[in-house]
């Protein structure tokens, strides 16, 4: 695929941080990666490999030390591009705002008129199954519901690229599977490109069209797996034999890298 036709395109992206000892910490890269428009791409890697750093670079939260990132043909360098939404692992609801106001926060910067705004907020709240809790405050909701509020706040902006940073990391296994179903549904409905960071191999195997595997720090891409799932799918695909094949392949690529992170590599 040429760089121009990709929805998101990374070339030679590298990130280093100043380390505590005064030197430099090479966190990531160089990474080359292209996302097709409308694709669901998952990135898996051992903990501390720079997955979240990669996501922050694409989100424009910090600039890459070297290399270029392009979104819809325009370069991102540490500024927040329009059309991108992010959902974090941590609870990022504003505790002083009601569910409704939290979701409406996503539209602060948009130019649409108030009536249309209210309508859109209501629609997204309904889409996320939060209608009965629109007036509640985050503290009154469960962790899973709060994460839905954050997803709603992102969706209301109608982003063309959605970045998910281990969004279900803090939830229990059953809730994660069900939230996965919802994300798949939203992905189909919105037609957005989704970029998912996760450490859970089964989550990546179940959700993504394509899975990129990262090495231990400094994170580089060491494998890419096409899942070939149909676009219409849900969590029941975990019963299929291919699911086991995919997770096995991922673990094969990752095992050596994970051993490095816990200091047990040969």
């Amino acid at each position, binding site marked *: 695929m040429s760089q121009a036709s990709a929805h998101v395109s990374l070339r030679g992206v590298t990130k280093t941080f100043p380390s505590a000892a005064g030197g430099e910490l090479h966190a990531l890269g160089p990474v080359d990666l292209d996302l097709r428009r409308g694709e669901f791409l998952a990135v898996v890697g051992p903990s501390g490999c720079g997955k979240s750093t990669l996501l922050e670079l694409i989100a424009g939260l910090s600039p890459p030390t070297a290399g270029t990132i392009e979104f819809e043909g325009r370069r991102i360098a540490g500024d927040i591009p329009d059309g991108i939404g992010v959902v974090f692992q941590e609870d990022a609801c*504003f505790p002083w705002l009601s569910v409704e106001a939290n979701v409406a926060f996503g539209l602060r910067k948009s130019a649409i008129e108030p009536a249309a705004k209210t309508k859109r907020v209501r629609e997204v709240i309904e889409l996320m199954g939060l209608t009965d809790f629109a007036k509640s*405050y985050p503290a009154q909701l469960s962790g899973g519901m709060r994460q839905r509020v954050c997803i709603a706040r992102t969706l209301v902006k109608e982003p063309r690229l959605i970045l998910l940073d281990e969004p279900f990391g803090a939830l229990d296994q059953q809730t994660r599977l069900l939230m996965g179903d919802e994300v798949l549904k939203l992905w189909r409905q919105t037609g957005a490109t989704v970029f998912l960071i996760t450490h859970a191999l089964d989550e990546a195997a179940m959700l993504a069209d394509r899975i990129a595997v990262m090495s231990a720090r400094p994170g580089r891409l060491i494998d890419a797996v096409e899942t070939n799932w149909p676009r219409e799918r849900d969590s029941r695909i975990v019963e299929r034999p291919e699911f086991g094949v995919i997770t096995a392949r991922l673990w094969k690529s990752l095992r050596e890298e994970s051993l490095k992170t816990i200091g047990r590599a040969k």
Partner: protein
Amino acid sequence: MSANALKGVRNAAMLIAGLLVAWQALYWFVGDAALRPPLATFRYTLNLVTSEAFWPHLSETMRAFAVALAIAVSVGLATGFWLGSHKLSSQVFEPMLVAVYSIPKITLYPILLLAFGLGMPAKIAFGAIHGIVPVALFTINAVRNVRPILIKTGRVHGLSATEMVRAVLFPAALPEIFTGFRVGFSLTLIGTLLGEMFAAQRGLGYLLMTAIGLHNVDLIMAVTLLLITFAAAVSSVLLAIDRRLHRRI
């Protein structure tokens, strides 16, 4: 919610009843030399607040307190936001603020008297120096403890620096800032009163000091009752707001 409110009212009633009983019992034990019983005190207090000589004292105290509180809150907030969001400055100045917080400020009253003279400015200064530091220290912590994920979320939504303060930093820090305000309120009040006791010729603090000097037990008890009632009423309201703000977290 209403069950909670009911409980609050019941607790307050029990506390007041308990204090009245203890007061009466103490009176039976100590006698007229240093105490008056509750009923006699209420009667005297009623006479006091209906007498014309009393109101200038009250208005003087309230004016001094209001100005001192305004100074304490504005200077405290500004200092707190500055030090809370600037790491090097807070490393340099915060230990000094803590040291100032910990000194017995009552020892400074002769210096304030020499600097400001007897009267309004001295007691405003005395009230303000009691209140500024707690407001500042609570604000520093409040701003510093805003969860980074909320700031990151603000950035993802493309907020400018002023929008970030208004829409994220301030509301996120508000519960802790309010606690600081509550503490600042108490300390500014006691500071103003202490200022009046030692450095003024008008106001409730002065009235109390004169009564102590003349050993006028009726007056001591009445002024103390009024001050406690005022402080308790306001701080109960502030405490209720404080709890409401904290419940959302």
